[in-house]
Protein backbone atom coordinates (compact mmCIF):
# COMPACT_ATOMS: atom_id res chain seq x y z
CA UNK A 1 0.00 0.00 0.00
CA UNK A 2 0.93 3.54 -0.65
CA UNK A 3 0.68 4.34 3.01
CA UNK A 4 2.79 1.51 4.31
CA UNK A 5 6.03 3.45 4.24
CA UNK A 6 4.80 5.67 7.01
CA UNK A 7 3.99 2.69 9.16
CA UNK A 8 6.43 0.97 11.38
CA UNK A 9 7.71 -1.54 8.85
CA UNK A 10 9.68 -3.75 11.25
CA UNK A 11 6.52 -4.12 13.29
CA UNK A 12 4.50 -4.93 10.18
CA UNK A 13 7.03 -7.58 9.23
CA UNK A 14 7.11 -8.88 12.75
CA UNK A 15 3.35 -9.32 12.73
CA UNK A 16 3.40 -10.88 9.29
CA UNK A 17 5.98 -13.40 10.39
CA UNK A 18 4.20 -14.05 13.65
CA UNK A 19 0.93 -14.73 11.86
CA UNK A 20 2.63 -17.02 9.36
CA UNK A 21 4.38 -18.94 12.12
CA UNK A 22 1.13 -19.32 14.02
CA UNK A 23 -0.74 -20.42 10.93
CA UNK A 24 1.78 -22.95 9.72
CA UNK A 25 2.47 -24.10 13.24
CA UNK A 26 -1.21 -24.75 13.88
CA UNK A 27 -1.49 -26.59 10.58
CA UNK A 28 1.51 -28.83 11.28
CA UNK A 29 0.30 -29.46 14.79
CA UNK A 30 -3.21 -30.36 13.63
CA UNK A 31 -1.84 -32.79 11.07
CA UNK A 32 0.44 -34.43 13.62
CA UNK A 33 -2.36 -34.80 16.12
CA UNK A 34 -4.51 -36.34 13.43
CA UNK A 35 -7.09 -33.54 13.38
CA UNK A 36 -6.35 -32.94 9.73
CA UNK A 37 -5.90 -35.78 7.29
CA UNK A 38 -2.58 -35.36 5.46
CA UNK A 39 -4.17 -37.02 2.44
CA UNK A 40 -6.10 -33.80 1.94
CA UNK A 41 -4.00 -31.27 3.81
CA UNK A 42 -0.45 -32.53 3.52
CA UNK A 43 1.67 -30.72 6.13
CA UNK A 44 3.88 -27.63 6.16
CA UNK A 45 7.02 -29.65 6.76
CA UNK A 46 6.32 -31.93 3.84
CA UNK A 47 5.45 -29.01 1.62
CA UNK A 48 8.64 -27.29 2.62
CA UNK A 49 10.64 -30.40 1.86
CA UNK A 50 8.96 -30.76 -1.51
CA UNK A 51 9.59 -27.12 -2.46
CA UNK A 52 13.23 -27.39 -1.47
CA UNK A 53 13.54 -30.58 -3.47
CA UNK A 54 12.00 -28.88 -6.50
CA UNK A 55 14.13 -25.81 -6.15
CA UNK A 56 17.30 -27.87 -6.01
CA UNK A 57 16.27 -29.53 -9.25
CA UNK A 58 16.07 -27.76 -12.59
CA UNK A 59 12.71 -28.51 -14.13
CA UNK A 60 10.79 -26.28 -11.76
CA UNK A 61 12.58 -23.23 -13.09
CA UNK A 62 11.42 -23.99 -16.56
CA UNK A 63 7.87 -24.50 -15.30
CA UNK A 64 8.02 -21.20 -13.46
CA UNK A 65 9.46 -19.50 -16.48
CA UNK A 66 6.62 -20.77 -18.64
CA UNK A 67 3.87 -19.89 -16.22
CA UNK A 68 5.24 -16.44 -15.42
CA UNK A 69 5.74 -15.79 -19.09
CA UNK A 70 2.14 -16.68 -19.87
CA UNK A 71 0.92 -14.68 -16.90
CA UNK A 72 2.84 -11.52 -17.68
CA UNK A 73 2.08 -11.65 -21.36
CA UNK A 74 -1.62 -12.21 -20.70
CA UNK A 75 -1.56 -9.52 -18.06
CA UNK A 76 0.09 -6.98 -20.34
CA UNK A 77 -2.20 -7.62 -23.28
CA UNK A 78 -5.30 -7.77 -21.09
CA UNK A 79 -4.40 -4.56 -19.26
CA UNK A 80 -3.74 -2.77 -22.50
CA UNK A 81 -6.99 -3.83 -24.13
CA UNK A 82 -8.99 -3.32 -20.94
CA UNK A 83 -7.58 0.13 -20.31
CA UNK A 84 -8.04 1.37 -23.84
CA UNK A 85 -11.61 0.09 -24.06
CA UNK A 86 -12.31 1.45 -20.58
CA UNK A 87 -11.15 4.92 -21.55
CA UNK A 88 -12.94 4.88 -24.87
CA UNK A 89 -16.20 3.66 -23.37
CA UNK A 90 -16.09 6.12 -20.49
CA UNK A 91 -15.66 9.00 -22.90
CA UNK A 92 -18.16 7.76 -25.48
CA UNK A 93 -21.47 7.32 -23.68
CA UNK A 94 -23.23 6.01 -26.78
CA UNK A 95 -20.72 3.24 -27.32
CA UNK A 96 -20.88 2.41 -23.63
CA UNK A 97 -24.66 2.34 -23.64
CA UNK A 98 -24.74 -0.10 -26.53
CA UNK A 99 -21.94 -2.43 -25.54
CA UNK A 100 -21.60 -2.20 -21.80
CA UNK A 101 -24.14 -4.98 -21.11
CA UNK A 102 -22.17 -7.13 -23.50
CA UNK A 103 -19.07 -6.67 -21.41
CA UNK A 104 -20.89 -7.59 -18.23
CA UNK A 105 -22.27 -10.68 -19.86
CA UNK A 106 -19.03 -11.76 -21.51
CA UNK A 107 -17.30 -11.27 -18.20
CA UNK A 108 -19.72 -13.74 -16.67
CA UNK A 109 -19.02 -16.41 -19.24
CA UNK A 110 -17.33 -19.44 -17.69
CA UNK A 111 -14.19 -19.46 -19.79
CA UNK A 112 -13.57 -23.07 -18.88
CA UNK A 113 -16.42 -24.06 -21.15
CA UNK A 114 -14.63 -22.46 -24.08
CA UNK A 115 -11.58 -24.68 -23.75
CA UNK A 116 -11.98 -26.44 -27.11
CA UNK A 117 -12.44 -23.14 -28.92
CA UNK A 118 -9.28 -21.79 -27.37
CA UNK A 119 -7.41 -24.84 -28.58
CA UNK A 120 -8.76 -24.50 -32.10
CA UNK A 121 -7.94 -20.83 -32.23
CA UNK A 122 -4.72 -20.72 -30.29
CA UNK A 123 -3.39 -24.27 -30.38
CA UNK A 124 -2.05 -26.11 -27.37
CA UNK A 125 1.05 -24.00 -26.89
CA UNK A 126 1.41 -21.02 -24.67
CA UNK A 127 -0.87 -18.83 -26.80
CA UNK A 128 -3.98 -20.56 -25.53
CA UNK A 129 -2.97 -19.88 -21.92
CA UNK A 130 -2.08 -16.31 -22.71
CA UNK A 131 -5.46 -15.92 -24.38
CA UNK A 132 -7.16 -17.34 -21.32
CA UNK A 133 -5.31 -14.87 -19.07
CA UNK A 134 -6.15 -12.03 -21.44
CA UNK A 135 -9.89 -12.61 -21.46
CA UNK A 136 -9.97 -12.78 -17.69
CA UNK A 137 -7.82 -9.71 -17.04
CA UNK A 138 -9.36 -7.61 -19.76
CA UNK A 139 -12.76 -7.36 -18.10
CA UNK A 140 -11.45 -6.49 -14.67
CA UNK A 141 -9.27 -3.72 -15.99
CA UNK A 142 -12.00 -2.56 -18.29
CA UNK A 143 -14.56 -2.16 -15.53
CA UNK A 144 -12.21 -0.37 -13.19
CA UNK A 145 -10.84 1.96 -15.84
CA UNK A 146 -14.33 2.69 -17.05
CA UNK A 147 -15.51 3.55 -13.56
CA UNK A 148 -12.29 5.39 -12.72
CA UNK A 149 -12.64 7.65 -15.74
CA UNK A 150 -16.30 8.27 -15.06
CA UNK A 151 -15.46 9.39 -11.53
CA UNK A 152 -12.96 11.99 -12.71
CA UNK A 153 -13.98 15.46 -11.63
CA UNK A 154 -15.70 17.24 -14.50
CA UNK A 155 -14.30 20.51 -13.16
CA UNK A 156 -10.75 19.34 -13.76
CA UNK A 157 -11.62 18.22 -17.26
CA UNK A 158 -13.23 21.59 -17.90
CA UNK A 159 -10.16 23.38 -16.68
CA UNK A 160 -7.93 21.28 -18.91
CA UNK A 161 -10.12 22.00 -21.91
CA UNK A 162 -10.06 25.72 -21.20
CA UNK A 163 -6.30 25.54 -20.88
CA UNK A 164 -6.17 24.17 -24.40
CA UNK A 165 -5.81 20.43 -23.83
CA UNK A 166 -6.56 18.23 -26.81
CA UNK A 167 -8.55 15.03 -26.32
CA UNK A 168 -5.29 13.20 -25.97
CA UNK A 169 -3.91 15.70 -23.45
CA UNK A 170 -7.08 15.45 -21.39
CA UNK A 171 -6.59 11.71 -21.35
CA UNK A 172 -2.92 11.90 -20.56
CA UNK A 173 -2.97 14.74 -18.04
CA UNK A 174 -6.37 14.45 -16.38
CA UNK A 175 -8.19 11.19 -16.92
CA UNK A 176 -5.20 8.94 -16.56
CA UNK A 177 -3.66 10.42 -13.39
CA UNK A 178 -7.07 10.76 -11.85
CA UNK A 179 -8.09 7.18 -12.57
CA UNK A 180 -4.69 5.87 -11.56
CA UNK A 181 -5.73 4.73 -8.11
CA UNK A 182 -8.42 2.61 -9.69
CA UNK A 183 -6.29 1.32 -12.44
CA UNK A 184 -3.69 0.17 -9.95
CA UNK A 185 -6.30 -1.35 -7.73
CA UNK A 186 -7.44 -3.39 -10.70
CA UNK A 187 -3.87 -4.25 -11.62
CA UNK A 188 -3.33 -5.77 -8.23
CA UNK A 189 -6.44 -7.87 -8.64
CA UNK A 190 -5.69 -8.64 -12.25
CA UNK A 191 -2.26 -10.01 -11.76
CA UNK A 192 -3.87 -12.70 -9.67
CA UNK A 193 -6.42 -13.36 -12.34
CA UNK A 194 -3.82 -13.43 -15.07
CA UNK A 195 -2.10 -16.16 -13.14
CA UNK A 196 -5.36 -17.99 -12.63
CA UNK A 197 -6.03 -17.70 -16.35
CA UNK A 198 -2.64 -19.12 -17.19
CA UNK A 199 -3.06 -21.93 -14.69
CA UNK A 200 -6.55 -22.75 -15.88
CA UNK A 201 -5.13 -22.84 -19.37
CA UNK A 202 -2.43 -25.19 -18.18
CA UNK A 203 -5.02 -27.36 -16.49
CA UNK A 204 -6.83 -27.49 -19.78
CA UNK A 205 -3.87 -28.59 -21.81
CA UNK A 206 -0.16 -28.21 -21.17
CA UNK A 207 3.23 -29.85 -21.23
CA UNK A 208 4.92 -27.49 -18.82
CA UNK A 209 4.19 -24.85 -16.28
CA UNK A 210 3.36 -24.76 -12.60
CA UNK A 211 -0.34 -25.20 -13.34
CA UNK A 212 0.46 -28.37 -15.18
CA UNK A 213 2.58 -29.47 -12.26
CA UNK A 214 -0.31 -28.92 -9.88
CA UNK A 215 -2.79 -30.67 -12.15
CA UNK A 216 -0.49 -33.71 -12.41
CA UNK A 217 0.05 -33.81 -8.67
CA UNK A 218 -3.69 -33.62 -8.17
CA UNK A 219 -4.28 -36.52 -10.53
CA UNK A 220 -1.89 -38.55 -8.39
CA UNK A 221 -3.51 -37.58 -5.09
CA UNK A 222 -0.25 -35.85 -4.30
CA UNK A 223 -1.59 -33.12 -2.03
CA UNK A 224 1.90 -32.09 -1.05
CA UNK A 225 2.66 -31.44 -4.69
CA UNK A 226 -0.54 -29.45 -5.13
CA UNK A 227 0.14 -27.23 -2.15
CA UNK A 228 3.80 -26.82 -3.02
CA UNK A 229 2.81 -25.69 -6.50
CA UNK A 230 0.24 -23.30 -5.10
CA UNK A 231 2.73 -21.82 -2.70
CA UNK A 232 5.24 -21.27 -5.47
CA UNK A 233 2.55 -19.51 -7.49
CA UNK A 234 1.63 -17.35 -4.54
CA UNK A 235 5.21 -16.35 -3.92
CA UNK A 236 5.50 -15.34 -7.54
CA UNK A 237 2.37 -13.23 -7.34
CA UNK A 238 3.66 -11.63 -4.21
CA UNK A 239 6.85 -10.56 -5.94
CA UNK A 240 4.92 -9.12 -8.87
CA UNK A 241 2.57 -7.35 -6.49
CA UNK A 242 5.46 -5.70 -4.69
CA UNK A 243 6.71 -4.42 -8.04
CA UNK A 244 3.25 -3.07 -8.91
CA UNK A 245 3.06 -1.30 -5.57
CA UNK A 246 6.46 0.31 -6.04
CA UNK A 247 5.36 1.63 -9.41
CA UNK A 248 2.11 2.89 -7.93
CA UNK A 249 3.93 4.68 -5.15
CA UNK A 250 6.13 6.39 -7.72
CA UNK A 251 3.18 7.45 -9.82
CA UNK A 252 1.01 8.64 -6.97
CA UNK A 253 3.73 10.44 -5.05
CA UNK A 254 1.67 13.61 -5.31
CA UNK A 255 -0.93 12.32 -2.90
CA UNK A 256 -0.97 13.73 0.60
CA UNK A 257 -0.70 11.63 3.69
CA UNK A 258 -3.94 9.83 4.26
Amino acid at each position, binding site marked *: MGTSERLNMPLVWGLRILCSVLFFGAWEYAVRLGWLDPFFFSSPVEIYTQIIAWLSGQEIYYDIYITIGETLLGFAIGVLIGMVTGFVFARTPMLAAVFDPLFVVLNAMPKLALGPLFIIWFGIGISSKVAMAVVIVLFLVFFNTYQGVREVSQDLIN*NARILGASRWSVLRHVLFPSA*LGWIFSSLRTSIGYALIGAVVGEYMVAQHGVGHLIASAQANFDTTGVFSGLIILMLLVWVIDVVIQRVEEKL*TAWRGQA
Partner: protein
Amino acid sequence: MTVRERGASQPDVRAEQRGQALAPYIEIRDVSKQFVNKKGTVFTGVTEIELTIEKGSFVSIVGPSGCGKSTLLTMISGLSGPTTGDVLIEGKSIRDVQNNMGFLFQKDVLFPWKTVLGNVESPLLFRGVDKSEANRRALEWIAKVGLKGFEHHYPHQLSGGMRKRVSMAQTFVYDPEVILMDEPFSALDVHTRNRMENELMEIWGGSGRTVVFVTHDLEEAIALSTHVVVFTKSPGRIKAVYEVDLPYPRNVAEIKFEPKFPEIYQMIWSDLREEVAGHGHE
Protein backbone atom coordinates in the same frame (compact mmCIF):
# COMPACT_ATOMS: atom_id res chain seq x y z
CA MET B 1 -20.88 57.99 -17.41
CA THR B 2 -23.54 56.15 -19.30
CA VAL B 3 -26.29 54.36 -17.50
CA ARG B 4 -28.45 52.00 -19.38
CA GLU B 5 -31.36 50.04 -18.08
CA ARG B 6 -31.79 46.45 -19.22
CA GLY B 7 -33.64 46.03 -22.47
CA ALA B 8 -32.46 49.32 -23.92
CA SER B 9 -30.49 49.03 -27.14
CA GLN B 10 -26.77 48.38 -26.84
CA PRO B 11 -24.85 51.52 -25.98
CA ASP B 12 -22.20 52.97 -28.18
CA VAL B 13 -19.48 52.49 -25.64
CA ARG B 14 -16.47 54.68 -26.30
CA ALA B 15 -13.22 52.93 -25.80
CA GLU B 16 -11.15 55.02 -28.14
CA GLN B 17 -9.35 56.63 -25.25
CA ARG B 18 -7.38 53.39 -24.95
CA GLY B 19 -7.10 52.89 -28.67
CA GLN B 20 -9.33 49.85 -28.74
CA ALA B 21 -11.52 48.63 -31.55
CA LEU B 22 -15.23 49.29 -31.34
CA ALA B 23 -16.76 46.24 -32.99
CA PRO B 24 -18.96 44.02 -30.85
CA TYR B 25 -16.74 41.14 -29.84
CA ILE B 26 -18.75 38.93 -27.53
CA GLU B 27 -22.49 39.04 -28.08
CA ILE B 28 -24.92 37.45 -25.68
CA ARG B 29 -28.30 37.37 -27.36
CA ASP B 30 -31.37 36.84 -25.24
CA VAL B 31 -29.73 34.00 -23.41
CA SER B 32 -31.33 31.93 -20.68
CA LYS B 33 -30.08 28.85 -18.88
CA GLN B 34 -32.33 26.31 -17.32
CA PHE B 35 -31.26 23.41 -15.16
CA VAL B 36 -33.37 20.28 -15.19
CA ASN B 37 -32.87 17.95 -12.29
CA LYS B 38 -33.40 14.20 -12.33
CA LYS B 39 -36.98 14.58 -11.18
CA GLY B 40 -37.63 16.83 -14.15
CA THR B 41 -38.02 20.04 -12.15
CA VAL B 42 -36.76 23.05 -14.07
CA PHE B 43 -34.72 25.74 -12.37
CA THR B 44 -33.90 28.95 -14.18
CA GLY B 45 -30.32 30.06 -13.57
CA VAL B 46 -30.31 33.21 -15.69
CA THR B 47 -32.78 34.58 -18.19
CA GLU B 48 -33.17 37.25 -20.86
CA ILE B 49 -29.49 38.09 -20.83
CA GLU B 50 -28.65 40.53 -23.63
CA LEU B 51 -25.14 41.94 -23.54
CA THR B 52 -22.54 43.08 -26.01
CA ILE B 53 -18.92 43.21 -24.99
CA GLU B 54 -16.50 45.11 -27.18
CA LYS B 55 -13.02 43.93 -27.86
CA GLY B 56 -10.70 45.41 -25.29
CA SER B 57 -13.27 46.18 -22.67
CA PHE B 58 -13.14 45.17 -19.03
CA VAL B 59 -16.59 44.17 -17.88
CA SER B 60 -17.34 43.47 -14.24
CA ILE B 61 -20.42 41.59 -13.15
CA VAL B 62 -21.89 42.21 -9.73
CA GLY B 63 -25.02 40.80 -8.19
CA PRO B 64 -26.39 38.85 -5.28
CA SER B 65 -25.09 35.41 -4.43
CA GLY B 66 -26.70 32.79 -6.64
CA CYS B 67 -27.94 35.21 -9.30
CA GLY B 68 -26.19 33.46 -12.17
CA LYS B 69 -22.86 35.20 -12.60
CA SER B 70 -20.87 31.97 -12.78
CA THR B 71 -23.51 30.46 -15.03
CA LEU B 72 -23.06 33.32 -17.50
CA LEU B 73 -19.27 32.96 -17.49
CA THR B 74 -19.58 29.24 -18.14
CA MET B 75 -21.74 29.93 -21.17
CA ILE B 76 -19.27 32.49 -22.54
CA SER B 77 -16.46 29.98 -22.07
CA GLY B 78 -18.26 27.49 -24.29
CA LEU B 79 -18.17 24.80 -21.60
CA SER B 80 -21.93 24.73 -21.48
CA GLY B 81 -24.43 26.05 -23.97
CA PRO B 82 -27.40 28.30 -23.21
CA THR B 83 -30.87 26.77 -23.07
CA THR B 84 -32.26 29.49 -25.31
CA GLY B 85 -30.55 32.33 -27.11
CA ASP B 86 -27.07 32.44 -28.48
CA VAL B 87 -23.57 33.44 -27.45
CA LEU B 88 -21.38 34.71 -30.28
CA ILE B 89 -17.73 35.63 -30.52
CA GLU B 90 -16.81 37.75 -33.52
CA GLY B 91 -20.19 36.92 -34.98
CA LYS B 92 -19.77 33.16 -34.68
CA SER B 93 -21.91 31.14 -32.36
CA ILE B 94 -19.87 29.39 -29.69
CA ARG B 95 -20.20 25.64 -29.89
CA ASP B 96 -17.19 24.52 -27.94
CA VAL B 97 -14.34 25.76 -25.83
CA GLN B 98 -12.37 28.54 -27.53
CA ASN B 99 -8.66 28.38 -27.82
CA ASN B 100 -8.01 32.00 -26.98
CA MET B 101 -9.85 32.12 -23.70
CA GLY B 102 -8.78 31.94 -20.11
CA PHE B 103 -11.16 31.05 -17.30
CA LEU B 104 -10.34 31.45 -13.65
CA PHE B 105 -12.95 29.27 -12.02
CA GLN B 106 -14.62 30.04 -8.73
CA LYS B 107 -13.85 26.48 -7.66
CA ASP B 108 -10.45 25.06 -6.98
CA VAL B 109 -9.53 23.23 -10.18
CA LEU B 110 -5.77 22.79 -10.03
CA PHE B 111 -4.48 19.38 -11.10
CA PRO B 112 -3.69 17.73 -7.79
CA TRP B 113 -1.10 15.43 -9.36
CA LYS B 114 0.98 18.27 -10.77
CA THR B 115 3.30 20.54 -8.85
CA VAL B 116 2.85 24.29 -8.93
CA LEU B 117 5.30 24.39 -11.80
CA GLY B 118 3.56 21.55 -13.59
CA ASN B 119 0.20 23.24 -13.22
CA VAL B 120 1.43 26.57 -14.52
CA GLU B 121 3.34 24.98 -17.38
CA SER B 122 0.51 22.77 -18.51
CA PRO B 123 -1.44 25.23 -20.72
CA LEU B 124 1.79 26.04 -22.54
CA LEU B 125 2.61 22.39 -23.06
CA PHE B 126 -0.97 21.74 -24.20
CA ARG B 127 -0.41 24.44 -26.78
CA GLY B 128 2.79 22.84 -28.00
CA VAL B 129 5.17 25.40 -26.53
CA ASP B 130 8.67 24.08 -26.25
CA LYS B 131 9.41 22.53 -22.83
CA SER B 132 12.23 24.87 -21.81
CA GLU B 133 10.36 27.94 -22.99
CA ALA B 134 7.27 26.77 -21.08
CA ASN B 135 9.41 26.29 -18.03
CA ARG B 136 10.87 29.74 -18.27
CA ARG B 137 7.53 31.44 -18.70
CA ALA B 138 5.92 29.40 -15.94
CA LEU B 139 8.67 30.27 -13.47
CA GLU B 140 8.29 33.91 -14.37
CA TRP B 141 4.60 33.80 -13.57
CA ILE B 142 5.08 31.82 -10.41
CA ALA B 143 7.34 34.61 -9.21
CA LYS B 144 4.81 37.25 -10.29
CA VAL B 145 2.09 35.72 -8.12
CA GLY B 146 4.52 35.53 -5.22
CA LEU B 147 5.07 31.80 -5.10
CA LYS B 148 8.79 31.63 -5.68
CA GLY B 149 10.10 28.73 -3.64
CA PHE B 150 6.88 26.76 -3.97
CA GLU B 151 7.49 25.53 -7.54
CA HIS B 152 7.69 21.91 -6.47
CA HIS B 153 4.85 21.89 -4.00
CA TYR B 154 1.67 20.04 -4.82
CA PRO B 155 -1.67 21.85 -4.51
CA HIS B 156 -2.60 20.03 -1.30
CA GLN B 157 0.54 21.49 0.27
CA LEU B 158 -0.59 25.06 -0.37
CA SER B 159 -2.92 27.40 1.44
CA GLY B 160 -6.22 28.48 -0.11
CA GLY B 161 -4.89 31.83 -1.25
CA MET B 162 -1.78 30.26 -2.68
CA ARG B 163 -3.84 27.83 -4.73
CA LYS B 164 -5.88 30.70 -6.11
CA ARG B 165 -2.68 32.41 -7.15
CA VAL B 166 -1.43 29.29 -8.90
CA SER B 167 -4.69 29.28 -10.86
CA MET B 168 -4.06 32.87 -11.80
CA ALA B 169 -0.58 32.12 -13.04
CA GLN B 170 -1.98 29.15 -14.94
CA THR B 171 -4.40 31.42 -16.78
CA PHE B 172 -2.14 34.38 -17.37
CA VAL B 173 0.86 32.37 -18.50
CA TYR B 174 -0.59 31.61 -21.92
CA ASP B 175 -1.83 35.13 -22.42
CA PRO B 176 -5.38 34.46 -23.59
CA GLU B 177 -7.27 37.13 -25.51
CA VAL B 178 -10.43 36.81 -23.48
CA ILE B 179 -10.09 36.35 -19.75
CA LEU B 180 -13.05 35.20 -17.67
CA MET B 181 -12.50 35.58 -13.94
CA ASP B 182 -14.87 34.35 -11.25
CA GLU B 183 -14.16 36.03 -7.90
CA PRO B 184 -10.44 35.62 -8.35
CA PHE B 185 -9.21 37.80 -5.54
CA SER B 186 -11.59 37.19 -2.67
CA ALA B 187 -9.30 34.70 -0.93
CA LEU B 188 -6.33 37.03 -0.92
CA ASP B 189 -5.05 39.43 1.67
CA VAL B 190 -5.35 43.12 0.83
CA HIS B 191 -1.85 43.60 -0.34
CA THR B 192 -1.57 40.50 -2.49
CA ARG B 193 -4.94 41.40 -3.89
CA ASN B 194 -3.74 44.87 -4.84
CA ARG B 195 -0.69 43.45 -6.48
CA MET B 196 -2.75 40.98 -8.44
CA GLU B 197 -5.17 43.69 -9.49
CA ASN B 198 -2.36 45.83 -10.76
CA GLU B 199 -0.86 42.86 -12.56
CA LEU B 200 -4.21 42.31 -14.23
CA MET B 201 -4.47 45.97 -15.23
CA GLU B 202 -1.04 45.72 -16.78
CA ILE B 203 -1.85 42.61 -18.78
CA TRP B 204 -5.13 43.94 -19.97
CA GLY B 205 -4.17 47.57 -20.48
CA GLY B 206 -1.48 47.14 -23.03
CA SER B 207 -3.37 45.16 -25.60
CA GLY B 208 -6.77 44.37 -27.01
CA ARG B 209 -7.53 41.78 -24.39
CA THR B 210 -11.06 41.50 -23.09
CA VAL B 211 -11.88 40.71 -19.48
CA VAL B 212 -15.13 39.57 -17.92
CA PHE B 213 -14.79 39.76 -14.19
CA VAL B 214 -17.13 38.58 -11.43
CA THR B 215 -16.74 40.08 -7.99
CA HIS B 216 -18.69 40.91 -4.87
CA ASP B 217 -16.55 43.92 -4.19
CA LEU B 218 -18.10 46.90 -5.91
CA GLU B 219 -15.07 49.07 -5.22
CA GLU B 220 -12.92 46.57 -6.98
CA ALA B 221 -15.37 46.34 -9.87
CA ILE B 222 -15.40 50.09 -10.36
CA ALA B 223 -11.66 50.43 -9.87
CA LEU B 224 -10.86 47.93 -12.60
CA SER B 225 -13.62 48.08 -15.19
CA THR B 226 -14.72 49.95 -18.23
CA HIS B 227 -18.23 48.60 -17.60
CA VAL B 228 -20.07 47.28 -14.58
CA VAL B 229 -23.02 44.96 -15.15
CA VAL B 230 -25.52 44.70 -12.32
CA PHE B 231 -27.57 41.53 -12.06
CA THR B 232 -30.94 41.20 -10.40
CA LYS B 233 -31.46 38.54 -7.82
CA SER B 234 -32.15 34.98 -8.91
CA PRO B 235 -33.27 34.15 -11.59
CA GLY B 236 -30.66 36.61 -12.77
CA ARG B 237 -31.42 39.26 -15.35
CA ILE B 238 -29.28 42.23 -16.27
CA LYS B 239 -30.57 45.16 -14.32
CA ALA B 240 -28.24 47.80 -15.68
CA VAL B 241 -24.94 48.29 -17.41
CA TYR B 242 -22.79 51.21 -16.24
CA GLU B 243 -19.86 52.62 -18.09
CA VAL B 244 -17.13 53.70 -15.72
CA ASP B 245 -15.81 57.03 -16.84
CA LEU B 246 -12.46 57.06 -15.06
CA PRO B 247 -9.20 57.54 -16.88
CA TYR B 248 -6.73 54.72 -17.55
CA PRO B 249 -4.09 53.77 -16.57
CA ARG B 250 -5.51 53.40 -13.10
CA ASN B 251 -3.69 52.63 -9.91
CA VAL B 252 -6.16 50.40 -8.17
CA ALA B 253 -5.14 51.35 -4.64
CA GLU B 254 -5.39 55.07 -5.38
CA ILE B 255 -8.38 55.30 -7.67
CA LYS B 256 -10.79 55.29 -4.74
CA PHE B 257 -9.57 58.74 -3.92
CA GLU B 258 -10.54 60.10 -7.34
CA PRO B 259 -13.25 62.67 -6.79
CA LYS B 260 -15.64 60.97 -9.21
CA PHE B 261 -15.31 57.60 -7.51
CA PRO B 262 -17.78 57.97 -4.62
CA GLU B 263 -20.38 59.34 -7.00
CA ILE B 264 -20.10 56.37 -9.31
CA TYR B 265 -20.03 54.04 -6.35
CA GLN B 266 -23.18 55.50 -4.84
CA MET B 267 -25.03 55.30 -8.11
CA ILE B 268 -24.27 51.65 -8.77
CA TRP B 269 -24.59 50.70 -5.13
CA SER B 270 -28.08 52.10 -4.81
CA ASP B 271 -29.04 49.94 -7.76
CA LEU B 272 -27.28 46.85 -6.48
CA ARG B 273 -28.50 47.30 -2.93
CA GLU B 274 -32.10 46.86 -4.00
CA GLU B 275 -31.22 43.49 -5.39
CA VAL B 276 -29.00 42.12 -2.70
CA ALA B 277 -31.20 43.40 0.06
CA GLY B 278 -34.25 41.85 -1.52
CA HIS B 279 -33.32 38.24 -1.22
CA GLY B 280 -33.51 35.68 1.50
CA HIS B 281 -34.45 36.05 5.13
CA GLU B 282 -38.00 37.01 4.21
